[in-house]
């Protein structure tokens, strides 16, 4: 038990610091914690910006969600995109990391360059890829000049092809990030492990499987989790690239929330989908993290 005077002295000395810290926490409360609860509350109402006041409709929005085929399409697409992009971006990242794991200047330059897709804004990424992927775009120009295709491929115009194209672009954006994460992990593997491995007669493949893959497991946890979260809330790249089209085939759940809120003016319904996305993100992130963590422990 500290004497009372201790707290008084402490308070007077730390007042300025406490004020700044409290301000930070207050802003977090006002712009994250309170909004989440406001969103939760709205999700039980028919709130609409065009009319004042709102009615409590209980689980009305949630039961509507069950029958909303556009929502279902968007959730399926979002989950497939998240899974596919996470797998591809992590494989590409690991491969790039293995390839670029050298100290020579040329490799360091290549590393710097490989991260560039992460630096450019999603809007620019979207526009640039759009010029590449449209029917009279640069990719078709190149393919036709190489006589690989005769009629231009409509990369963004056919539902399934557009979904695939969006996946490629998003995986492209994320791969620079995963590369850097895996590179960091590779650089922390002690050389002694490989030395010991080769003394024990382990070949390159065996060393890769038994040492490299196991030692990058913690990095995999982080890289996979962040990739999943990033795709689940992705908005800008898809919005610019396809605006969710054709026929809503590439509409992510995050985009659908924005569309419901600002195009259809259905704040209440948008909030209930937002709550769903929040729960989905939390469940996926937490379960994937714990599964991958357990894998780390096993090793």
């Amino acid at each position, binding site marked *: 038990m500290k004497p009372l005077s201790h707290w008084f002295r402490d308070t007077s000395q730390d*007042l300025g610091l406490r004020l700044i810290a409290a301000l930070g926490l207050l802003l977090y409360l006002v712009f994250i914690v309170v909004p989440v609860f406001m969103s939760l509350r709205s999700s039980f109402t028919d709130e609409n910006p065009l009319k004042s006041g709102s009615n409590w409709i209980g689980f009305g929005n949630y039961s509507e969600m069950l029958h909303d085929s556009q929502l279902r399409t968007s959730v399926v697409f979002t989950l497939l995109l998240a899974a596919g992009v996470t797998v591809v971006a992590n494989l590409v990242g690991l491969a790039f990391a293995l390839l670029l794991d050298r100290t020579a200047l040329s490799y360091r330059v290549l590393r710097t360059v490989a991260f560039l897709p992460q630096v450019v804004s999603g809007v620019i990424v979207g526009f640039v890829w759009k010029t590449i992927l449209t029917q009279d775009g640069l990719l078709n120009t190149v393919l036709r000049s190489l006589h690989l295709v005769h009629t231009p491929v409509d990369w963004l115009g056919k539902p399934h092809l557009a979904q695939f194209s969006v996946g490629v672009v998003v995986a492209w954006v994320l791969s620079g990030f995963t590369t850097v994460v895996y590179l960091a992990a590779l650089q922390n593997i002690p050389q002694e492990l490989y030395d010991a491995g080769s003394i024990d007669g382990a070949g390159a493949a065996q060393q890769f499987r038994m040492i490299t893959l196991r030692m990058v497991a913690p990095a995999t946890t982080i890289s996979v989790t962040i990739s999943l979260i990033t795709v689940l809330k992705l908005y800008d790249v898809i919005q610019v690239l396809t605006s969710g089209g054709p026929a809503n085939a590439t509409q992510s759940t995050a985009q659908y929330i924005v569309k419901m809120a600002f195009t259809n003016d259905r704040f209440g319904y948008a909030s209930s989908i937002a709550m769903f996305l929040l729960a989905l993100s939390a469940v996926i992130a937490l379960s994937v993290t714990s599964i991958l963590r357990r894998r780390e422990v096993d090793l």
Partner: protein
Amino acid sequence: MTVQSPSARRPALRRPPARRPVHGRPAGAAVPRRGRRRLFGPARLALAVVLVLVFVSPIYLTVVNAFKKEDDIVAGPATPPVHPTLHNLSTALNRPDHLLQLGLRNSLIVVVCSVLLLIPLGSAFSFWISRRRTRPRAVVLAVLAAGLMIPPQVVLLPTIRILTFLGLDHSYPGLILSNLGGGYFSFAVFVYVGFMRAVPDEVVEAARLDGAGGLRIWWTIIMPLVRPATATVAIFLSLWIWNDFLNPQFILGPLQGQTITTGLYLSVGQFQMDYGQLFGIMFLAGVIPVVGYLAMQKQFIAGLTAGSTK
């Protein structure tokens, strides 16, 4: 698009350990480096160069085509500019709506104000919380961690309503204020807390015995010690806030002056544009973050990797 970087879970006042030299091994030594003896020298480098170039080819296209005439782009999009022209860039800069000038200026204002406020907020908060007892600290940090996972679409509508209530909707102060509170704050706190754990208690206690108050200790002792954390936070937050699209789009609204991302989206998306113009605009809009990244890439990579490995 933003990637929430891993929080720096490990204190890292020191720089990441340097790689042991590859060339230190005698030629032909029996011990292969990391079991990879098949891909040697030039072949490996050539493969790396080709793959990385293919990977960044969309960026390459933007750069070379920004300096080519429309006809040359259509004739050979991948060829380097044989007859380089600044026409695309000057057309982009002379647009009657001053898209680039205004957008870059507005983005700069938002980024500088947000980051300059987030750094003291995040760092003072981290210093304060890292001196608290374990359990309350863990609870507060867990609540903050949630902020990194919450999709921004979830909090967007209420944020706009709160800003409307404060009379700050559709304004730059409103946008900056909402930046201060959200996931950016969480990120700053996680990086700073990781670094501050490495600061020995004795340093703080000694200063306290000398009569220094909390604010003074934080500013004159802690802040210089955690300079690498400040660099990490400043670089990442600048990039994310610069590239942010959702918040500027809906908090500023279409009637206000645009940041560069929303300005591009609204102006460029509205009409069909020739490739030369488009690449010129993209080049100029992207050049600031890219140059910033290239200038700071050492700190950038160090910050990104600080938290991603154990």
